[in-house]
C-alpha cells in the first residue's frame, strides 16, 4: 500500500458489493415476486437482470430483493419499485429485456416506464 488513493480504490470497489447488507430506508427498493407463479412465468432472469444492471451502473442507492406471491398471478413476473418517499410502481409481465429500460428510465432518471406498468396493461 503505497498511497491513500490505493486504499480508496479498494474501498470504493468493495463498498458496492457490500451494499446489499445495508438496510437503511433511504434507498430505492426493487422487489421481484418470486412465488411459484412468478418463477414459472420467468421471474428469475428478471431478478438476476436487475442485480446485474444495478451492479454495472454502480447504483448504490438501489437494493434488489424478492417477495412471495403478490396475488396477481396472471400478470407475473411482477416487479414493484419503492422509492424512499413511499411511492410504489408495479411493473407486470416483466422480461429480462424490459429490465434495462426500467433501470435507466426509472431507477436512474426517476421516470416511470408507464407502458410496462399494471395500469397500462389492465386497460
Amino acid at each position, binding site marked *: 500500500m503505497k498511497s491513500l488513493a490505493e486504499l480508496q480504490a479498494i474501498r470504493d470497489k*468493495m463498498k458496492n458489493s457490500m451494499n446489499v447488507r445495508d*438496510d437503511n430506508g433511504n434507498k430505492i427498493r426493487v422487489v421481484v415476486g418470486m412465488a411459484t407463479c412468478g418463477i414459472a412465468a420467468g421471474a428469475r432472469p428478471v431478478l438476476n437482470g436487475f442485480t446485474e444492471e444495478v451492479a454495472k451502473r454502480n447504483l448504490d442507492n438501489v437494493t434488489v430483493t424478492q417477495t412471495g406471491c403478490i396475488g396477481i398471478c396472471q400478470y407475473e413476473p411482477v416487479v414493484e419499485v419503492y422509492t424512499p418517499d413511499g411511492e410504489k410502481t408495479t411493473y407486470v409481465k416483466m422480461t429480462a429485456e424490459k429490465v434495462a429500460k426500467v433501470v435507466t428510465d426509472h431507477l436512474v432518471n426517476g421516470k416511470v416506464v408507464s407502458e410496462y406498468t399494471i395500469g397500462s396493461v389492465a386497460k
Partner: protein
Amino acid sequence: MYRSHILVCGGTGCTSSGSEQIISTLEQELAKNGLEKEVKVIKTGCFGLCALGPIMIVYPEGSFYSMVKSEDIPEIVSEHLLKGRIVKRLLYSETVTEDTVKSLNETDFYKKQHRVALKNCGVINPENIDEYIALDGYQALGKVLTEMKPQEVIEVIKESGLRGRGGGGFPTGLKWQFAAGNESDQKYVCCNADEGDPGAFMDRSVLEGDPHVLIEAMSIAGYAIGATKGYVYVRAEYPIAVKRLQIAINQAKEYGLLGQHIFGTDFCFDMELRLGAGAFVCGEETALMTSIEGHRGEPRPRPPFPAVKGLFGKPTILNNVETYANIPQIILKGASWFNSMGTEKSKGTKVFALGGKIHNTGLVEVPMGTTLREIIEEIGGGIPNGKKFKAAQTGGPSGGCIPAEMIDIKIDYDNLIAIGSMMGSGGLIVMDEDTCMVDIAKFFLEFTVDESCGKCAPCRIGTKRMYEMLSQICKGNATLEDLDKLEELCYEIKAGSLCGLGQTAPNPVLSTLKYYRHEYEAHVVDKKCPAGVCKDLLSFEIIADKCKGCTLCSRVCPVGAIQGTVKNPHSIDKSKCIKCGACIEKCRFDAIVKK
C-alpha cells in the same frame, strides 16, 4: 454481483452450537438449487445474541433467523431464497410482530445498544481485508500517517477521554504520552488479548469478528509513541481468534499495511502473535511482558512502569483489545464525537458479556452510564422462569456484587468502584434468588487460588486461607468471629499483594460481606443456607400431607434413601441422603422441600 448475502455467525458461541455445519449445508443446498452465483454466504464474527445461536441474517431483507438447525436449511433455501417467502417460524421472535417483520436493529436487544468497539462484528467477513477496508478500515491509519504528527495523535486520544477497557480504567492518552516521552532506540506496542475473567469474552469476539481493527489501532499507537514493533499476547484457548488474527496479519502484510514505509511514509511497523498458555496472571501487564520475553509469567513490582521500562527493558505500552478497537474511530470521527457519549469521567461505550440467569446471554455494547436495570431488563430480556433478580457480579474475580436494590446504578468506572465492585473487563453475571452469595464468593476465590502465580505470600497463602474459611462457612462450621477474621484478612491481602491479581482477589468476599452479611450470618448462626445451595446445611424432607405415594421419588433416588409403600406418604432417611435434588425434580406434588 450477488443479489443476496447470508451472514452466518462464526463466533465461538455459534461455532460450538454448529454454525460450521450450517454453512456447509447452506452451500450444498444453494448449489443444488443453482443459486451459488446469486447468493453469497459470509462467515462473520459474533452478533451478540449468543443464547440464540446458531444465527444468520439474510440480506437485503435483513431477516434474522435464530437457533437454526441443518434440517432447516433446505426450507430457508427453497422458501426464502428461491421464492422470497420468509420462514417465519425460524425468525427471532422479537423481530416478529402481528403483521410485520422488524429489522434486528429495532428489537429491544439492539435498540438501546450503541456499537463502537463491536461496529464490524457480525457485519463483515473477518477473513477478508477488503470488507474491512470497505467500511473505512485503515482510513484512520492513513490519516495519522499523512496528516498528523505523533503528538497530535496523542492529543486526540487524551481529549477523547478514552480509558483502558481491560480493568483499571487508566486514561489511554496519558499512557501513550508517557511512552512517547521516553527516548529509546526501540519501543514496543503490546496488546493484552489474554482475557481470563470468568464470564468475559468481548476481546475474543473483537478478535474473531474484526481482527483488522486491532492491527490498525496498534499501528496508530506505534506511530504515536515511536514504536516499530507490536506484540499481541493472545490466549491459546481462543483458537478461532488466533487463526483469524494470523490471517489478518498476513493480509495486512501482503497489502503493505504492515511492514516498511506504510502509505509511502517513513513509518515502519510490524506485528507478531504470542500465545499465552492459559495462566490468569499473564493478563497482568508486567507478567504478560515477562511471558512474551520467554520467561515464566510472573509479575514484578512497579515502578518502573512499562512506559519507562517494559518489554525487553524498553518503553512499552500495553492496552487491551477493546481499548484498541475504539482508536480508529476516534481518529476518524474526532475526540468530541467520542466524549459526547458516556458520563463525566467515563467516556464512550462499554461492551458487557451478559451471562448467568438472564434471557439474552451474549454481548452488548452500551454508552457508559447506562443503568444496570436497562441492561438486565430491557436489553437482557430479564430473568428467566419468573425468578427475582438478586445481584449482578461485575469485573470477574477482581470485582464484586451489585445488590438488587442498586439496580438503578449508572454503570461507569467510578460508580462501580464506589460500591466496591469494578468494571474489570466487563463480565456481567446475573444472579437470581437461587444463588447463594457465600457460595459465589467461594467460587471466585477458588479461581484465584488456582490462578495465583505464587510469587508473593499474601496472594499465595492468603487467598488459600480465605478459601478455607469460606468453605467452613458453607459447611456451617464457622463463628461470627471468623467473619471478622475473614474481613481483616481481606484487607491484609489487598494491601500486601504484589500485583493486581492479589490486590483485587478479596473483592468478591468484601462486596458480598458488605451487602449480604445476613446471608453469611445465616450460615454461621442458624446453620442455614437461605438460597438452598450449600449442601451441608440442607436437609430434604417429605411433607406427608402432600405426598400421594406415587413412588416416583424413591425410584429416582440414586442411594435408596427414600422409603415408603404405594399410596402411602414416603420418608427420607437423612443419614443416607446425598442431597442431589433428583427427588425434588421428579415430584409432581411439591411434596419434597429443601430446608
